[in-house]
């Protein structure tokens, strides 16, 4: 890595994270000034006011410009959503802490913070949601069963807008379209008129904001002594006069335009998983023209531009560098004829990811059987280096699954991943919904206890037969199904209601203007997009499968364990029941290619799929999919869940995604992957996470890497949906637990996203260490 990149990287990594007031201040000023405006225009004016006045920074050596916060390591407050302390939320799983004046140093800052806080009292999204949600739904949320919407504190996020449009046509052309549409609908569609008016305000502001960087570059140029840097600053100024307003003229401008849009996406809302789509595809023509053919930029300089671009993503923080926003770059994939679309830029993206070694963005490779073997090898080598984010997602599974849900074939081929592997189509399809997960293990608990909440004795679910009252496993499964179905309507309520509240109070005119069709429809993306789906998060799917299998085997098939005894044992965290725990631990566990448990995968899947099959979203009238993307909820949910029948102790972590429970996949990687591929990906079109961890020994030479490539290819050909690999030594991790300062850039895949190991709390660290190493 050259000195420029090294220095820029260190600046980001070393930045002391702290809360800043700039965005809150400017948004509050704008809110006060526009109280009587309709929401869309109010939001656009607020964004404009922010962009016109926020601090503009061009760091020494930077080639790609556009700073997120008001200074290094600053995380901004989004008062219109919430004052929640997201650091506490995402690191310690406490959703109820707020930022307060003690977070600020000077008296003046404290006073200002309190003024801002007071102004927004009763107007934040969090307070609105808490007012609207009925008591029972709030209870389900507080018990961690379901209906906990991230949208209570955050924006929609989870989207890749049409970056290609910005690169190829520029914002000016979008503004022209919006203006034309305003004229067309002026007299008869007040919503469309207002939406487009807001879009124009927002986009014009983004252009002015770009020009502020041009001015800053010119200012620095005038003072700069170094000839080389002077030339760079001159180019930066020229770039910022041109993009994102007009089409990008060269590779540098293309990267710059994408970055510029991407950072503003994070200023309009504090959303997670905002991603840039198929970067290697839409930038490739410029890369080819300027780097491969034209020689306008040398290979080395083009790579520096790309590295600068990659590093920028880590500047965007919500709650500091500690929290990954899961911004994703999708590369490779196939075309309609099955041809590989991997190109030189795809390889350079992977190289940049490997050389930068930062938390964000994560790079996702779209696998298919004709994928360039050199790319597969590169990913595995990167995994060996322990410094990559790369994961594979299977075109051959995802594209047909999308088509089945009515996505046109040419659109399905354009899919990209957002965040921890949510399936989206840039500019066209978003998915998710804000209160996604239903914790299946909670449903299992309620089924065990007949709908009674074991933690308080209260009847929370419908009254069903408890385990002790069931004579057959089928009866018990029926209890599970009844409990399950009961919650679906509340999830659907909460999901639709969240969309409604966001569309009413926090519309996104800037992001919406870059989604296909929003201008023509004149409706915000929170109201309608080309395609849309909701997901039911079955994040602890495997925990449910393991538990149902354990109960089936011990209580019903073998009749070796009494139900009442088992219930006593888990209520007592196995204390006094050590022998029973051993019996339950010995029941088959997912991840070993053991049909004794894996046969329940389709059963549990069907219950989930059937429960949502009749649901439609209010937004777009779209279907529901399942997903299994736990982020770190498997750790959190484990902490709040008492001992469970499969042999787990109080507080123990759950399996991360469609992966094995810690220490229970003992039959080798092929067995683990066979178990995983028993999932029907059509039901999980929303995306899944499947982890496999290798000891670096397993990848020590070319021959071994070739074998791992075969493992990946065979698994994908069998219909595996996703695979992310991890490769670190236990010793390294243990050392990092004790000496975090020595390992500050040690990255691990947690579950669908990458984190710095030293940022994880001890429970998560222990989870990573305990996960079975696939050694031989």
């Amino acid at each position, binding site marked *: 890595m050259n000195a420029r990149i090294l220095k820029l990287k260190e600046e980001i990594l070393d930045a002391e994270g702290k809360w800043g007031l700039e965005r809150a201040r400017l948004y509050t000023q704008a809110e006060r000034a526009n109280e009587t405006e309709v929401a869309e225009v109010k939001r656009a004016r607020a964004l404009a006011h922010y962009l016109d006045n926020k601090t503009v920074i061009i760091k020494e050596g930077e080639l790609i410009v556009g700073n997120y916060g008001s200074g290094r390591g600053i995380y901004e407050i989004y008062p219109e959503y919430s004052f929640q302390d997201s650091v506490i939320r995402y690191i310690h799983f406490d959703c109820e802490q707020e930022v307060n004046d003690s977070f600020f140093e000077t008296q003046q800052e404290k006073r200002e913070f309190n003024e801002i806080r007071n102004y927004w009292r009763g107007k934040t999204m969090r307070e609105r949601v808490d007012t609207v949600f009925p008591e029972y739904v709030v209870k389900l949320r507080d018990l961690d069963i379901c209906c906990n919407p991230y949208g209570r504190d955050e924006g929609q996020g989870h989207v890749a807008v049409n970056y290609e449009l910005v690169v190829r046509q520029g914002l000016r052309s979008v503004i022209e379209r919006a203006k034309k549409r305003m004229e067309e609908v002026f007299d008869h569609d007040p919503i469309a008129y207002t939406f487009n008016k807001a879009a124009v305000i927002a986009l014009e502001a983004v252009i002015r904001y770009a020009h502020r960087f041009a001015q800053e570059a010119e200012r620095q140029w005038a003072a700069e002594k170094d000839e080389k840097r002077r030339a760079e600053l001159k180019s930066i100024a020229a770039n910022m006069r041109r993009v994102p307003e007009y089409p990008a003229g060269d590779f540098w401008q293309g990267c710059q335009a994408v970055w510029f849009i991407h950072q503003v996406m994070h200023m309009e809302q504090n959303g997670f998983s905002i991603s840039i789509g198929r970067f290697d595809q839409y930038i490739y023509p410029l890369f080819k023209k300027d780097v491969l053919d034209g020689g306008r930029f040398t290979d080395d300089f083009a790579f520096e531009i790309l590295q600068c671009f990659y590093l920028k993503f880590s500047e965007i923080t919500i709650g500091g560098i500690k929290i990954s926003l899961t911004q994703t770059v999708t590369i490779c994939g196939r075309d309609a004829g099955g041809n590989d679309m991997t190109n030189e830029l795809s390889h350079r993206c992977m190289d940049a990811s490997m050389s930068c070694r930062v938390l964000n963005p994560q790079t996702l490779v779209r696998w298919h059987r004709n994928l360039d073997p050199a790319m597969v090898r590169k990913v595995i080598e990167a995994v060996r280096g322990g410094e990559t984010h790369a994961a594979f997602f299977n075109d051959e599974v995802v594209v047909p699954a999308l088509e089945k849900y009515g996505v046109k074939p040419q659109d399905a081929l354009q899919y990209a991943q957002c965040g921890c592997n949510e399936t989206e189509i840039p500019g066209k399809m978003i998915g998710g919904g804000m209160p996604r997960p239903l914790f299946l293990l909670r449903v299992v608990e309620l089924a065990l206890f007949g709908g009674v909440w074991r933690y308080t004795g209260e009847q929370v679910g419908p009254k069903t037969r408890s385990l002790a009252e069931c004579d057959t496993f089928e009866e018990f499964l029926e209890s599970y199904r009844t409990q399950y179905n009961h919650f679906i309507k509340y999830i659907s309520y909460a999901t639709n209601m969240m969309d409604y509240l966001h569309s009413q109070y926090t519309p996104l005119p800037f992001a919406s203007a870059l989604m296909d069709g929003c201008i023509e429809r004149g409706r915000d993306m929170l109201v309608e997009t080309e395609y849309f789906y909701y997901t039911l998060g079955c994040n602890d799917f495997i925990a449910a499968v393991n538990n149902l299998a354990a109960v089936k085997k011990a209580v019903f098939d073998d009749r070796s364990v009494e139900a009442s005894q088992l219930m006593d044992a888990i209520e007592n965290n196995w204390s006094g029941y050590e*022998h029973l725990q051993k019996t339950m631990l010995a029941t088959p566990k997912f991840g070993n290619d053991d049909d004794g448990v894996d046969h329940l995968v389709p059963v549990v899947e069907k219950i989930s799929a059937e429960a949502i099959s009749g649901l439609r979203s209010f937004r777009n009238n779209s279907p529901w999919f399942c997903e299994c993307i736990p982020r770190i909820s498997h750790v959190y949910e484990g902490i709040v869940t008492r001992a469970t029948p499969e042999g787990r102790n109080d507080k123990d972590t759950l399996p991360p995604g469609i992966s094995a429970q810690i220490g229970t996949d003992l039959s080798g990687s092929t067995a683990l992957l066979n178990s995983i591929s028993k999932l029907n990906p059509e039901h999980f079109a929303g995306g899944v996470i499947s982890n496999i961890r290798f000891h670096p020994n397993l990848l020590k030479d070319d021959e071994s890497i070739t*074998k791992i490539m*075969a493992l990946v290819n*065979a*698994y994908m050909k069998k219909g595996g949906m996703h695979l992310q690999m991890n490769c670190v030594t236990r010793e390294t991790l243990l050392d990092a637990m004790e000496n975090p300062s020595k390992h500050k850039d040690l990255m691990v895949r947690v579950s669908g996203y990458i984190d710095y190991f030293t940022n994880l709390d001890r429970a998560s660290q222990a989870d990573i260490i305990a996960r079975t190493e696939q050694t*031989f």
Partner: protein
Amino acid sequence: MGERADILKIQRFSINDGPGIRTTVFLKGCPLRCAWCHNPDSMYREWQLVLAHRLCTHCSACVPACEAGVHSVSEGAHTVDFAACTLCGKCVEACPRSALSISGRSASVEQIIELALRDADYYRESGGGITLSGGEPTMQHEFVEALFTEAHRVGISTALDTSGHCRREAFVRLLTHTDHLLFDLKIMDPELHRQYTGADNMLIHNNFKCAIDRGADITVRHIVVPGVNDTPAENEALAAFMLGCGFRGSLSLLPYHAMALSKYEDIGMVYRLSEVIAPADAYMKELDEFFNRAGIRCRIN
């Protein structure tokens, strides 16, 4: 059909036991007694009680469970009278920590083929298959033959990991069913070979030549044990022997490691080589270069 074997374990996703991704079956029983053996519980075909000392908490639950009085626990020490054990399994059942187990089980051709077929996709993609290892698999050569015949019938490729210490007729018959041979050459000096493995190496060398003459696809495995076979004379003799036989396959060098030490204690055996330390990486590299220079394709495993 209907052949059964006494096995130690089946390991799926083996990537160091022949070409591609393989399923390796470790058979119990071996005619040799290599002092450095990594799988001491595969020396004997008889099943054995194993106490994993690192898991034992000295709770004494196993003591009353055993009618034969095998276990005694006192003052933080657990002693086992292995010879008295009848393998009834009661203590294994009683131990809450899963510290006790019985090493050895019976497996049929059908069971192994069923398991192997589950990984057929990975074999196809990688050029892998089944490997029989041990122990010394040729000790149960009827089973090997039955398994390999069935494997070929269902389209699975076969590899045999052998010391070559096997009767000629049986060895030759197995060769016809074996797609890939992993052949251990341990020590060239016959006297040293006898001293460290308990047997002469003449039979082994003859079988090696025979395998080459019959055109077998062979990888030679050679474990490098400092103080035993790391002398220049040994290395030169090994190279000369392989070249002299017309060997064209590759040589896999395995550095000795002492990780199996605790296994000996767990089954009540004594480890003879406890003072040997693993060879230095630099030495392994030198050796690698030496063989490559001699014209033998070589790789450190």
